[in-house]
């Protein structure tokens, strides 16, 4: 299996975390800014993708793009998919987290970021309250079983935490994030010297608010 994305957290980091947790063999194909001409010039339209984009996943003859299509495919493959009774709730949380992440992108890439961030942060009171209530005691987003939506939820919450640390002092969300961080393979990763949270930005380095590494400490 090969996952390819830029050298930043962005949309692919949840998938990287899910793969690390799973213990499966996979290749983390990372493109730097210098690789941009190679991606746009050679790779993008010549690899047989229906909808060329990043991130992409290649698994045997399956070639998938689109973050959520990849996350859900891996969820089904790696036994991290909800049971039938939980599917609808799972998808609602999945979409809600994508909504929040898109909202963050909308201001982060806007030259007017400084003037827009106040209103966005204010809305987090309600939006994060809803997520906290949904997760409750967990331990995972849907209850006892960890699923792909946990990695989306965890990582996007961490992006929001970098923007507004005050919203992440205590409560169900903080406890939930600690539980995800304590998963053995993830704990090893987060503690390692190589952990890319020390070097990767949350958004593109070109964004008005890139989300620099030291912002998440």
């Amino acid at each position, binding site marked *: 299996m090969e996952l390819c994305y830029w050298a930043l957290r962005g949309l692919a980091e949840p998938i990287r975390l899910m793969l690390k947790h799973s213990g499966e063999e996979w290749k983390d194909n990372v493109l730097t800014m210098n690789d941009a001409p190679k991606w746009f010039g050679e790779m993008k339209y010549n690899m047989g993708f*229906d909808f060329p984009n990043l991130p992409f996943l290649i698994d045997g003859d399956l070639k998938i793009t689109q973050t959520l*299509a990849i996350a*859900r*495919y891996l969820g089904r493959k790696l036994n991290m998919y909800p049971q039938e009774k939980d599917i*609808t709730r799972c998808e*609602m*949380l999945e979409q809600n987290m994508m*909504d929040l992440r898109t909202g963050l992108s909308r201001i982060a890439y806007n030259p007017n970021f400084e003037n827009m961030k106040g209103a966005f942060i204010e809305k987090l009171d309600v939006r994060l309250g809803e997520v906290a*209530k949904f997760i409750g005691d967990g331990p995972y987003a849907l209850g006892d079983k960890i699923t792909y939506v946990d990695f989306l939820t965890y990582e996007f919450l961490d992006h929001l935490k970098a923007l507004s640390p005050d919203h992440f002092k205590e409560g169900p969300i903080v406890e939930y994030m600690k539980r995800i961080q304590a998963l053995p393979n993830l704990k090893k990763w987060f503690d390692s010297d190589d952990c890319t949270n020390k070097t990767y930005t949350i958004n593109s380095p070109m964004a008005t608010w890139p989300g620099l590494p030291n912002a998440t400490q």
Partner: protein
Amino acid sequence: KEVTYSLAKNEEWFGEKKYNLGLDFPNLPYLIDGDVKLTQFTAIMRYLGRKLDMYPKTEKDLARCEMLEQNIYDLKTLRLAWIAYNEKFEERKDKLLETLPVRLAEVAEYIGEGPYAMGDKITYVDFITYELLDHVKLFSLSFSRPDHFSDPRITEYMKRIENLPNLKEWFESADCNAKRYTVHAPEPISKWEGKPLTAAE
């Protein structure tokens, strides 16, 4: 049963209903089906797809279906709506008009002969795809780019959806939303509302 909220009198939604319907993530659209209370467009579509037997059956089909679903979301929300609600719409629309042919060609290639997006069987993703194609068509026509919709794989696909019996009746009726509703919120909330074109246009 369909409940609509008027944008002009939005206190009914924001004031009373939004936080009092027992929704986990209050938002519009919402769907209530017995005990099931859902928000988030994509979650609602997948739920109805499963319930109404319009859902892919194999793993391979499901992965491909979700990739199309997300690519359409990309076009709808991260491209068209992104610029439509941006004060710099006038500057950005030309760039989107330039990139549309490539994106539409990818969709055309994916659909191919069809008849539906996933082949022989109609699925929830057909309704998402059809509706977005119609928004893009309105956008392209509004800015004098009818050439975007010359690929027969797309035009024939849209005709096949429009000719589904219940939809044909709906589209031809005087009440049809496509004749009355804008694509986005009315200006000035959006910078391009996507008003229905008249028959002449």
